[in-house]
């Protein structure tokens, strides 16, 4: 099991650089490129959600990201101390393509994460919010 920890300020400008670092870490650990790409997308969405919903755009807070990779799984834990999210249920994205007045402009991030990850889980305890994402990854057999 390889583990790496990252910490960023809750600023949108810090999201892309850290997702690139984590993608590099996944590639170094021989995770398949397509899995690395999908993980990068989910990380971006999850971190943006923390800044927007938990910290309400306050860029002075911090977000911790723990990444664990073994032969079968990639596990990411994102921790913040902002407002806990409510109604964190199974995300749905339903819209009528003929009704463009009512297209969703938000709520797509969690839906993307749910589609690309194999398991997601959110909890909030004692002022600490944690979002877990797990992806079954394909790695070449060790020689």
């Amino acid at each position: 099991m390889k583990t790496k920890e990252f910490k960023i300020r809750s600023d949108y400008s810090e999201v892309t650089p850290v997702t690139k670092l984590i993608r590099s870490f996944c590639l170094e650990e021989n995770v398949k490129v397509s899995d690395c790409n999908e993980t990068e997308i989910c990380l971006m969405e999850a971190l943006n959600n923390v800044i927007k919903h938990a910290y309400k755009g306050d860029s002075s807070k911090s977000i911790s990201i723990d990444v664990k990779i073994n032969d079968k799984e990639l596990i990411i834990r994102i921790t913040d101390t902002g407002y806990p999210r409510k109604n964190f249920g199974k995300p749905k994205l339903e819209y009528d393509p003929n009704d463009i007045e009512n297209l969703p402009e938000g709520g797509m991030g969690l839906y993307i994460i749910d589609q690309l990850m194999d398991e997601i889980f959110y909890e909030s305890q004692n002022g600490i919010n944690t979002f877990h994402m797990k992806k079954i990854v394909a790695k070449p057999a060790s020689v």
Partner: protein
Amino acid sequence: MADFNVNVRGVGSVSVIDVKGYLDAHTAPQLENAFNQLIDGSKYKVVVNFNDLSYISSAGLGVFMAYVETMRENKGDIKFSNMQDGVYNIFDLLGFPMLYEFYKNENEAIEKFKESISK
């Protein structure tokens, strides 16, 4: 800092928006500004050329959702061209092909606008 560039150019009655780099929550306001300027200039026929876009997040997708209604209400549209597979996969995941027209290259998208004018 994430690299993103947006450039708007006119091709006849059609406006082409070239997007480059990473389009995410941090950079999406630049694209919103481009759309606002087009609307201020009463330009509603838009092709977005994704040739140099490496990544799009849901915040970027939300921009297109926000502006398509205004464009169509004014006899225009937002059409997409030159999209890399990785970027298209995100659009596809969210059902965008039901809502928007995707073209392999910019000229095809521009021609489509011309066809709709001549009808």
